[in-house]
């Protein structure tokens, strides 16, 4: 591999660079520090400016404190390196004898205090505005759960889960990584531009933290409690963030994607969601009104399994230790079917096995149970119908 291949590739697409020879070539180019200027283009050296008034004011605060630190640093390190060079023994053999001066001590206690007061004033004003959650136009309840977000529009009565949509193959380096690797979801949060949106955060299990850097909104989602934050975005667009509180195994795979659309478009979208919910209801009625065959259920079940179950129980059903038990040959997947259904619908309290009843349709649950009982070498041969799931709920 050419040492500069990585360098040449980066503008074209950083995602291509994951295989071992490239690893070596990248190390080489890193050694030459040639790769750094490219990083500036890809990521930027600075805190993000963002798209809200608050995020821009925070960036200004960041700049103020950064430049004060730089200025103090230049003075202190300047003096230090001056004395390191000027007062070395070879040029300055006789040390001076002073070791106390109250005047100097008072000066260098007072000056930093004044600088700090100067920094505290704008910070206090900004903080007060960040905490002003009043008079919101739209309220969204954000619930973290291992490892996805649930968004509920409190007044419109609409709610949905938002799962990461990056395929496992990209994570396992079997496929080229996409542009928004790990920062893409199936259902983004949609909010209107130009209106004040209030976010209430809570959690179903452990503490998560909902962060969109471009809004400068980072709020912990704490089980049993609700926190609030707000934003007002003027520029429509798609903004990406991540969970920022360690929340278990798949903490890295819990992205936040927010789509900001003009207010009229937002209203249309809300209506569409209502219609979609009704259609889903009708589809569910249709699904449970007939019997499904093994050939129909297995591919649906496999897809559901890979999306929702495979990160813990593994794509081949081998599981990961006692926390994430194997599916292959397990007591549940090869035991009585009603126990299996109960486990999937209701989960296990206080473990990472969650209740899927509120998250998946009758058909999906029927299919995934059928799949688990007839894949990975399990051959129970039994079929679970959507109607059975409907009646078990």
């Amino acid at each position, binding site marked *: 591999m050419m040492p500069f291949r990585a360098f040449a590739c980066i503008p074209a697409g950083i995602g291509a660079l994951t295989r071992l020879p490239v690893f070596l070539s990248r190390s080489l180019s890193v050694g030459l520090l040639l790769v750094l200027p490219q990083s500036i283009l890809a990521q930027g050296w600075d805190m993000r400016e963002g798209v809200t008034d608050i995020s821009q004011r925070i960036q200004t605060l960041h700049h103020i404190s950064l430049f004060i630190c730089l200025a103090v640093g230049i003075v202190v390190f300047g003096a230090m390196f001056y004395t390191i060079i000027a007062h070395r023994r070879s040029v300055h053999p006789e040390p001076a004898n002073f070791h106390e001066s109250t005047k100097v001590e008072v000066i260098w206690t007072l000056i930093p205090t004044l600088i700090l007061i100067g920094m505290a004033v704008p910070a206090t004003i900004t903080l007060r505005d960040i905490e002003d959650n009043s008079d919101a136009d739209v309220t969204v309840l954000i619930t973290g759960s291992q490892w996805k977000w649930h968004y509920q529009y409190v007044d419109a009565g609409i709610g949905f889960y938002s799962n990461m949509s990056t395929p496992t193959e990209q994570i396992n380096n079997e496929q080229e990584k996409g542009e928004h690797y790990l920062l893409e979801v199936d259902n983004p949060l949609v909010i209107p531009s130009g209106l004040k949106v209030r976010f209430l955060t809570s959690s179903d299990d452990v503490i998560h933290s909902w962060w969109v850097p471009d809004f400068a909104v980072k709020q912990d989602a704490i089980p049993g*409690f609700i926190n609030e934050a707000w934003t007002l975005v003027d520029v429509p667009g798609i903004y990406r963030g991540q969970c920022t509180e360690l929340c278990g195994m798949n903490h890295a795979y819990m992205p936040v994607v927010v789509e900001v659309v003009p207010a009229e478009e937002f209203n249309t979208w809300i209506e569409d969601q209502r219609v979609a919910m009704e259609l889903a209801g009708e589809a569910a009625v249709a699904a449970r009104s007939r019997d499904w065959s093994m050939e129909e259920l297995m591919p649906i079940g496999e897809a559901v399994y890979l999306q929702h179950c495979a990160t813990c129980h593994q794509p081949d059903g081998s599981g990961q230790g006692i926390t994430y038990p194997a599916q292959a040959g397990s007591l549940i997947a090869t035991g009585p079917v009603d126990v299996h259904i109960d486990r999937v619908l209701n989960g296990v309290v206080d473990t990472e096995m969650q209740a899927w009843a509120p998250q998946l349709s009758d058909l999906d649950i029927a299919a995934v149970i059928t799949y688990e009982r007839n894949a990975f070498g399990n051959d129970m041969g039994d079929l679970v119908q959507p109607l059975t799931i409907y009646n078990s709920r």
Partner: protein
Amino acid sequence: MTDRQTDRQARLRRHTTLLAVVAVGMFGFAFALVPLYNIFCEITGLNGKTSGEAAPNIAATAPSSQTISGSAEREVTVQFLAHVSRGMPWEFRPTETRVRLQLGEVTETLYFARNFANTEFTGQAVPSVTPGYAARYLHKVECFCFTQQELAAGEEMDMPVYFYVGEDLPSDIGTLTLSYTMYPVSTGTRPVSGAPETAGGTMSMDHSEHSVL
């Protein structure tokens, strides 16, 4: 052994004991932080913890909200939210998402709960209010969250909360959010029979009224 050495030994022992007592005291202090934290939360409204006890019903002392001073005419919005703890086979939601009410006016709202498991299940609702410092102005006269709720398999019921918002609510609060999270109560920790009924007598009445078996 000289006197100086014995003196020193005594001093060593005294210092060591004193420091050990400090260490043990700090261990105790860690536990004392728990009640201290709760007091701190009540004062500052940290986390929106609300009092677990019923507030006196002001409706009894002030027959109608009209007669209360002018400030009572201020209206605020109260939003209702509900969460179900993960792995709990219940449906649990407010029957209305928000009400607009006057300060000091006792209001009723209902939360709906249904147990879709095929066994009976006990739950305990834990309230949280936001903004946090509004928690001390939201007074619950009666609440299903004061007691544990037991639902038979497939049973459903409407559970009432009677509350009012204190007239001293700071003027910068226009919207309060009241959220309940329903947690499972493990069978081992079921309360002594009769104990919860005394606290929420009306509750058991509502229970029989609304439940549909």
